[in-house]
């Protein structure tokens, strides 16, 4: 395949706080896939974190309300229907416009466009829009596992071996 190296943005762990965290897992407004959500919940729980699974087809307002209700340490957005790059950009702009949610760590991953690896990445645009990290499907789940294993996930930075994004 002629696709460019997969774009991935890896977090930089902060050493000063550790322990289990509260994680909110959610889809985006137009995406009804749920196996991805079920899988991510199980995976994140295996790292000792607590998960609130908001489910499929989550309107932006509902996600914002759920963030206020549960006060998560981190939000994990998953989308595979191909609209993730559109829904994700809109959603994160809404979230970042809320003063109390502007600094909340929010990551996104999945099949974010409709053209697969050949379609070029959406990582850069999504990071610019306000996500802390982007895990495109082509990269595999390894990066995210490392991320979850990190003692703290609060500080995220654009770094990593294969990151031409910024």
């Amino acid at each position, binding site marked *: 395949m002629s696709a460019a190296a997969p774009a991935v943005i890896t977090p930089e762990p902060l050493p000063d706080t550790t322990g289990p965290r509260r994680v909110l897992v959610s889809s985006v*407004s*137009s*995406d*009804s896939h*749920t*196996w991805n*959500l*079920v*899988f991510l919940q*199980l*995976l994140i729980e*295996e790292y000792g974190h607590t998960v609130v*699974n908001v*489910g*499929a*087809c*989550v309107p932006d307002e509902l996600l914002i309300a759920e963030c206020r209700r549960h006060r998560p340490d981190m939000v994990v957005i998953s989308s595979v*229907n*191909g*609209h993730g*790059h*559109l829904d994700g950009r809109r959603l994160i702009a809404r979230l970042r416009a809320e003063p109390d949610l502007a600094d909340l760590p929010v990551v996104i991953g999945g*099949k974010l*466009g*409709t*053209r*697969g*690896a*050949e*379609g070029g990445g959406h990582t850069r645009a999504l990071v610019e829009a306000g996500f802390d990290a982007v895990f495109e499907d082509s990269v595999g789940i390894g990066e995210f596992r490392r991320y979850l294993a990190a003692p703290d996930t609060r500080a995220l930075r654009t770094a990593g071996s294969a990151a031409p994004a910024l």
Partner: protein
Amino acid sequence: MSAPVGRTTPTGSFAAAVAAARSDGELVVQPRMGFPTVAQMGAGLKAVHGTSARTVGTITLDSYTRVGDHASAARALERDEELNGFPIVAHGGRTTREMIAAAGAGDFAIQVRHGSPLPLGIVQALIDAGLDATEGGPVSYCLPYSRTPLVEAVDAWARSCEVLAEQVPGAHLESFGGCMLGQLCPPSLLVALSVLEGVFFRRHGLRSISLSYAQQTSFPQDVAALAALRRLAGEYLGDTDWHVVLYTYMGVFPRTVPGAQALLRESARLAALTGTERLIVKTAAEAHRIPTIEDNVHALETASEAARTATATPADRPDEGEAEEIHAEARDMVEAVLELHRDIDRAIPAAFARGYLDVPYCLHADNAQRTRSHIDSRGRLRWSSVGRMPVRSAPGGTAASVGADELLGMLSHVQNTFDRAALDPAASPEALPAAGRIRQETK
């Protein structure tokens, strides 16, 4: 096979196309194809119409239209952004009709495929476009496709069925009940839901119906399930025009081209050997991205060829009594639901509320979430726990939860089996006898 088939004569274009193929002894193959623009969608219809395979056409709608967010669909069109299907409401019925005519597909039978719990706007648009066939159902397009409460989907589907039946003589409606989340739903529940949605459609005025079943993890078990579906449909829908539609595997797909094609061919062989009238295909792009027109045409021709040349082997045969068991289990579910209330519109939500119907791993708030399933050592899909469903062959109660890797293992079972067989001809076909046979065909 001396299988029962529908009795009344179809009048609509879609049902007539399927009936004509049936009397010619040919399988109808159909894509799941949808593109955002009129130019792409029109070209796609034209290409599908023009293939050597016996086809009907499909317009698959995008996710914004499915959730009723037509403004986002229109905005994406304006900005020339990627959409995962054709936004029929944003384009409008008239534009769609003109697109079909311009593609030279005016006499082509075309079905609109969507995935919407509240489909009235879509039904109106397809009627305006001059079309007479669509699919879905109050359960199958609610639980796997939305967070809409089931009672709202039931109301909306009842109204939509009535509008379709009143405004389009001979309209055809297919139940998507044979899919339910695409994977890990045991056959008896798929068969029961398909028939229940068929009964619902009939109650709301439709007389031309198809019942679906999606290829699962075991060829012989699928043969048994299709026989059970046909028998149960005959018992409940005897006085309507009906046929059976098979979906090529709807779960996690093989990543390799030969693996994907082998799975597709296997589904076509399954359709041919069971006397199934129509097959909806998947393409080799399935695991990766939205398929192109070429991907679709190739899949249609491959499936059609595989059906024409299909042969049976002893390994295809279900176990003694396997079809009867699936039929009995599905019939028990259907009866338990219909006994809850005289009105099926009330009976279906009541059945989910009590856990009489309960789809494994479905997160929807109206699903009881007490059931679990697994793939056994012979590749068959089985109940691990049946919660409160009226199933005698498996334990009740709630099963222990599985881990992430275990879940991924079950979800990837078919993918792995077919990819391995495609990449390594020496791989043991133990778990899925079918994969071993396919190796020879792929060469």
